[in-house]
């Protein structure tokens, strides 16, 4: 894959992460919900975080 495209995709992921980890999306999950015994917010944050890293790895390694 051409190098500049990789950089642009990473910037896009950066912007996506900025949105996902901030108000107002964060507030949607900041509730007293429990999923499998684990608070919803914790699940959301860690899953999103992991997914973001996975996408970054995908962009770089592919």
């Amino acid at each position, binding site marked *: 894959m051409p190098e500049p495209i*990789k*950089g642009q995709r*990473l*910037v896009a*992921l*950066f912007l996506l*992460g*900025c949105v996902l*980890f*901030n*108000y107002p999306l*964060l*507030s949607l999950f*900041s*509730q*007293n919900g*429990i999923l*499998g*015994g*684990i*608070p919803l*917010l*914790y699940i959301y*944050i*860690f899953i999103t*975080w*992991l997914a*973001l*890293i996975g996408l*970054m*790895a995908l962009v*770089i*390694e592919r």
Partner: protein
Amino acid sequence: MLQGWIIFLISLAYIGLLFAIAYYGDKRADAKRSLSSPYIYALSLAVYCTDWTFYGSVGRAASTGLGFLPIYLGPTLMAALWWFVLRKIIRISKANRIVSIADFIASRYGKSTTLGGLVTVIAVIGIIPYISLQLEGVSTSFTLLWRYPELVPPQSGVIGVLSDTGLYVALLLATFAILFGVRHLDAAEHHEGMVAAVAFESVIKLLAFVAAGLFVTFGLFDGFGDLFTQAAANPDLKALFTLEGTGGGYGGWFGLIFLSMLAIMFLPRQFQVAVVENVNEQHLPKAIWLFPLYLLAINIFVLPITFAGLLLFPHSTVDPDTFVLTLPMAYGQDILTMFVFLGGLSAATGMVIVETVALSTMVSNDLVIPVLLRWEGLRLAERQDLSGLLLIIRRSAIVVIVLLGYLYFRLTSDLYPLVSIGLVSFAAVAQFAPAILGGIYWKGGTRSGALTGLSAGFLVWAHTLLLPSLAESGWLPLSIMEPGPFGLSWLKPYELFGLSGWSPIPHALFWSLLVNVLGYIGGSLLGRQSVLEHSQASLFVDVFKRSGEGSQINLWRGSASVTDLRMLLGRFLGPGRADDLLSEYARQRSLNWTEVTNANAELVNYAEKLLAGSIGAASARVMMASVVKEELLNMGEVMGMLDETIAYSRQLEQKSQELEAATAELRAANERLQELDRLKDDFISTVSHELRTPLTSIRAFSEILFDNPDLDANRRSQFLSIILKENERLTRLINQVLDLSKIESGNAEWYVSEIDLIEVINESLQTTSQLFTENEIDLQLDLPDSVPPLVADRDRIKQVLLNLLSNAIKFCDHSAGWVGVRLQVKEEVIQVDVSDNGPGISEANQRIIFDKFRQVGDTMTEKPQGTGLGLPISRHIIAHFGGELWVTSTLGRGATFSFTLPLEPPLGWQNGAAEIGQSDTNIVVRSELLGQEFGDQRVASHRTQTGEQN
């Protein structure tokens, strides 16, 4: 059982292991079989996770739930931008042998010593709380462990300095840092051994933390679900499940993400491992996702450990900052406890080693050396070998920095949780962001802008974060906090300018970065860059557009001797190493040092970079200036060079314009030549035609006479007369052609004397009087009594007059012919008009009658009345004497031919003419021709002899 001495021994053994790893790493690097890999690089970046992460995260989670997490989300997001930003910084640093963040900023803004010093001061003051955090972490964990298996919270209150474990920890860490980090002198060289040890420590701390987490989650509880379900039963704990329950709000959350994004780039130790220690730029891409993954892994168990601690130690006898250690302790897990302790130790030592190495480089290169070099009393510049001194400075700097950390720890210990201390440092290094990010993307950033921004940001930081911590620890009066310094409420550190409702860190970050950015941009836009700043700016911003180190702009000129350079390098790098490096340089370029005595710009540049690796860009600049004969060009000289260039390009432009003009002239000349060629062809064909007509008639009549010998005498005489006339015409024509060509080519002879024009006119009229009589033409004369004498060729002027008169006679009205001759003396000229009452000449014909062989009327149908050469010849003659010949006529109302001759002859022709005039033979030849020259046959018989002309 964990005895104190066992803990001590294990700790020593662990540190010994780290040394072994470092030693091995250095050996491998020396043998060119580097250990470095993307994985080592990513793990070394994890030096970001210190005791703050290891112990402090849990402490912060205990009070704010997810509030510990932005510190790791920010770097994750930032990692995505590394592709552009960090790669650029790495490339720039490698090209310029940058050894620290202070070096980077100083180098970018014109290798400014002041700026480097300021950055160093900010970094040292800003990082000291952070180092104290590590001391506190290690000291607390050690104290706790010392009492094992009892679980006794560390005593609060005043402890004697000598009985304070913190001091010993500080000294231990300092020793460690000295042994690890400052073995080489060249700070730009990679400390691969140190990086390997740091990477190993990163593995240990991750494993230790995960092990503790697994034990707590699955050993003490029945997995995540069980743990959180139990916590949910407690309303206090349940509040931690959401962001709303934790205070700070989304603004604070975002502020921390932003802050940590800047910290991951600009913390001195992160700059050290990510940029200075980067062996290969290709390691970066993998680290972009491996490093965030590490952060994720080390944070998974923070919340479980937090809740477990809060559930199991309900009465807050245990500091949440120590849960990671105290939980295994409380449940008798000897090995795990020890492992966790080593993890914490790893986190702290890794941070302190890298941080102090980075800071000591900055302190020595950007603070101490510049001062020492300028301190003339020391005569430092004259000492032969300074490499030993450099090492001493760096090592002392490490000890001083760690001890300052300890001092801060003593002053503020127990007041703040670990994370809050660290965030103060984050906010300090965030001040570097505008100068660095602006510096690598905006060429307009100037030294004064960076100085203004950094100073302003640092002052606000000190006011809003450092001051409160000192006040609360009792070293400054508490009145600073409330009602504010000097009683001014708008200066309250936590509510600057009345901005209330913000937590301290985002509040400080906002104000400090605001004034910083404003100062940077404002200072840059208002000030001007020096030449060096300008060249450095383009070097930094356009780093990807340049191919390697060689193509840097060289605004340097002058000379330095190789010997001087060698001595200079020797003083700072050690003589042996300097020789090695110069030999290497010579080998690469096939140079022989015995032949090269003067260094060129490239060598000076090379030496400066070598020196920069050792003592920093700013100091290297100063040192090079001491051996290089001529300094960097100043603005005036650059403008001078620019002017020369502009002048040169103007000359070029002018030359090219001249060339264009010359080309145009040549083209015109060529066109003229072609035109002349065409005219010549026309002329030849016309002459041939004109010659053939009389020849044909001569031949025709001759044949008749030859074929008819019995022709009657009357006819014979008639034919012979025609032959004779045609013959005369032919002769006249040829004479005129010859005459014209002589005049045109400038070979004609001129006989010049003073003449009286009235006399010449009367002679011409006498010559033509018979024609007037024959044709019954009325002659009107208008001559003055006398005219001033003219200098001209009498015969030639007469030739012109005869031509005009014969033409007038020829073309005037046949029934009532009239010809007028008029002579006027004007201001500078004498004008002669010859008028007739003939049919006149149309305007179109007025132009062409002066051309050769052009006559009014159709020569094909009418019998030609002349040769068509009279007027061209006349015009040439008049022009030769500086006069003009022209015609005025209206169709049907006659024509007037006029010519003028100047009273004062034009300069230049008289001498040459007089010369020719002495040659009598020529006059005779010319006079022979003269008689043949006139248009009408009837004139031809009136031969003019030379004798008549005198």
